[in-house]
Structures are given as C-alpha cells and as structure tokens.
C-alpha cells in the first residue's frame, strides 16, 4: 500500500477493474446519460482520464471508488453535453418499445419515472441497484457520508413508490 501511495495506481490495476466491471460501469453511465452511445463515450473517457492521472491517485480510498467517481462525473458531464443526442435516442427507443419488455410498465415509462427523481437520489439508486455497490462504496464514489447515502436511498424509494402509485391509480 505504501508503494501505491507514493506511485499512484498502475495501468494494470486500472485495466483489471475496467475489464472486471465494465458492464456495471456502462450500465450506470447509460442510466445517467439515458443513451448507451453517450454512455460508452463517458466510460471510455473516464478511464482515459484515470490512465492519464493514475499517478494522482493517492490510495487513501479504494481504486474502485476513485474510478466510480470518475465515471459518474464523466457521465454527468456527457449527459449535459449530449442532451440532444440522448433525447433522439430515447425517442427512437420509445418508438420501438417492444412487448417482450413487459406488459405492466414499458421500459421508457419506468425510465421516465426514475428520471423524474432528483439527481442525487437517482445517482444513489443507480449505484445501488445497477452497480450493486455498498453504502460505503457509494459514499466514496459520490464524495458524501454513508448516512447521507442511506437517507437519500430511502427518499428515492419513497419518491418512486409515490410515482408508481400515481401511475397505477
């Protein structure tokens, strides 16, 4: 660990996390960006940043936490930058909504409900359920306290429940 604190993360360590968890990174990024193609760019750019700045990783948190932080931040930036593209993709997806995705709630409608959550709630929900991160890991990725994660997740559940009841009613 002392070696890592002095030298930052190695290329091999970053690559190992990328390969092992690519799908989780991509899923969360796609949920944030609401466009899988924009999400791809976000994940690739986030890891490119990690490669460039790997010596700046001080090792006082986990490497995974640092990488999640980069991916989430990059995805948020990309979402703002490519909002038009994401909207076009979403519109196309809506037009092709497929019955096999489920009768109760088409994917785009569910995504719409989740998109209506406040940003912090949304991010916590994505990291918890799409990336399967623990409260501590989410706190590290978002730079908040563990208690904040728990409270935000609780609020997210409540908001979603309310919205689903409204849709059903």
């Amino acid at each position, binding site marked *: 660990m002392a070696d890592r604190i002095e030298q930052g993360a190695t290329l091999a360590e970053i*690559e190992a996390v*990328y*390969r092992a968890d*690519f*799908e989780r990174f*991509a*899923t969360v990024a*796609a*949920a944030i960006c609401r466009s*899988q*193609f924009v*999400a*791809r760019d976000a994940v*690739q*750019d986030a*890891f*490119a*940043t990690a*490669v*460039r700045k790997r010596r700046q990783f001080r090792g006082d948190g986990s490497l995974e936490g640092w990488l999640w932080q980069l991916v989430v931040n990059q995805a948020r930036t990309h979402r703002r930058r490519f909002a038009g593209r994401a909207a076009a993709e979403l519109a*196309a997806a809506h037009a*092709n909504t497929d019955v096999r*995705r*489920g009768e*109760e*709630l*088409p*994917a785009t409608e*569910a*995504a719409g*409900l*989740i998109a209506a959550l406040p940003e912090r709630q949304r991010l916590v*929900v994505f990291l918890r*359920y*799409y990336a399967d991160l623990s409260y501590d890991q989410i706190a590290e990725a978002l730079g908040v306290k563990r208690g904040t994660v728990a409270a935000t997740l609780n609020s997210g*559940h409540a908001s*979603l*429940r309310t919205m*689903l009841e409204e849709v*059903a009613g």
Partner: protein
Amino acid sequence: MELETMVALEEARPLIVFEPDWNDVLGRAQEARTARRSARGVRRARSAALVLAVAVATAVAITPAFGVRGRLGSFFSLATASQPRATWNLVGPRVAATGQIGAAARLTRVHQRTLRRIVSGGSGYRQVSLIGAIGEDGKPWLGQQGPGWASAFFPLFGPVGEVDRASWRTRTAHGWDGWQFPMYGRSDAHRVVFSYLAFGGTQKTAVTWATLIGFARSDVARVTAVTVSGATHLLHLGRGGGYAYAAVRPGELPRALRVFDKDGRLIGLQQFRLEPLEP
C-alpha cells in the same frame, strides 16, 4: 424494497450493446496528452521534429559510407513497442434493417440499428455478405445476406443455439445452387479468422462455384486462399479485416485458407471440403 419499485428499476435497466475496448481507452488517453502537449507549444515541437528529421535523413544518407547502416538497422529493430492485444473489429457500412435482413434481425433479436456490412463477395446470385450486429446479450452476432435471402443471426462466440442450427441450411431462391454451408470456426474464440462459405452447382453431383467471405482478427497481416488446382491467391484485407474470394469454375474452388501474422508466421489454417449437400 417493494416489488413494484424493484420491477420498475429492472424495467428501466439500460441494455448495454457495446463491448469493453481497452485499446480505445489508451488511445483516448494518448490523444488527450497529445492535445495538451500541442497546446503548450506546437511551434517548438515542429521545430524539434524538423531538426530530428533532418538529422535522421542525414544519418541514413551518410551511414553507408562509414559502413554502419547495418548497425543503424539493428538499432531500429531493437525497438520493442508493446503490441496491442488482438481484437475483432466488426466494422463496415451501416445496413438498413429492412426486408429480410430486418426480419432476421427482429427474429433473432439483434439490435436493428447496429447492423453493419462487414464484407461482401461474389456476384449475381452467388453474392454473399456478412452482416454483423450487436445482440441483446451485448455481444457480436453474425448473419449472412444474399440477393433475395438472409439468414438468422447467431452469436460470434458462445454456444450454438437451435436458431443457429436451423440457419445452417437456409435454402435460397436458387435451389441447390444456393445451399449454404455452416460457418467455419464459429464458437471458437481462439481462431484467428472467421470464414463463411456458400457454394453450389448447376447439377446436384458437383460443386462448381463458391463464395468465401470472412474477417480476420486484428493481429492478422495476410490471408491467402489455396485453390484445388494448387494456385495461391492473396486476399485483400479490408477495414476491420474483412476478406472475400469468389470461384466460378471448379478449378478455382478454395481448398484452404492460410493466415499469417506481420512477421510472416503461419498462425491459422482452414481447410475446406466442398461436396454436394443433399437437400
């Protein structure tokens, strides 16, 4: 967490249709570095490059006179840049998901907006194209298309499903002339090339034509087709490593495919037995 909320989250879970690409990450990192560097001093870099180029040119020009060109060559050959890992690149022009290929894409549930023509070979009714797409599993799938027909898509890697088996003998509008042959090397990620062979003949007793199409892994530098008469043809490798070979006479039928890396080493060999298939 309540079931309804869980269901909503699952329904909204994004479907990922792309694969990890570490080389792309490294490329982006390098690009950003280059951009930063150029912002710091493009002129200084240009001047330095010019001086270096003149110095190298001068060295190359004068070294034979001093008998040191061999050493200079050795110096360059000692450079051992890290080699990129071999990858499969399913690239090519976009294909509209209409007609039979669109139906095949819907049937086998590949993403219709990801259809790409990797390579085409042959002409007229012997023409065959290899169509790549991203499946619902986020992995590459392949299908074939010819004039008036299209096969179902099947996964490039992984086990062969029932749909794939059925597609092996998709009859074309040309009867016996159009019987297809299974994809060679499929489900085998260790192969260096993936080839697809369509063949037929005007009589049921003899094969008289064949169209071979396929694509090579990124570390492949050269692909040659050996015909039944012993001739060797160097196949052009397109963007993404696609290649094609068309035989319209029995003597031109392909017997084998040889695959070489950039150092000229034989790294793959496929042999073909072209025999009439019973309908």
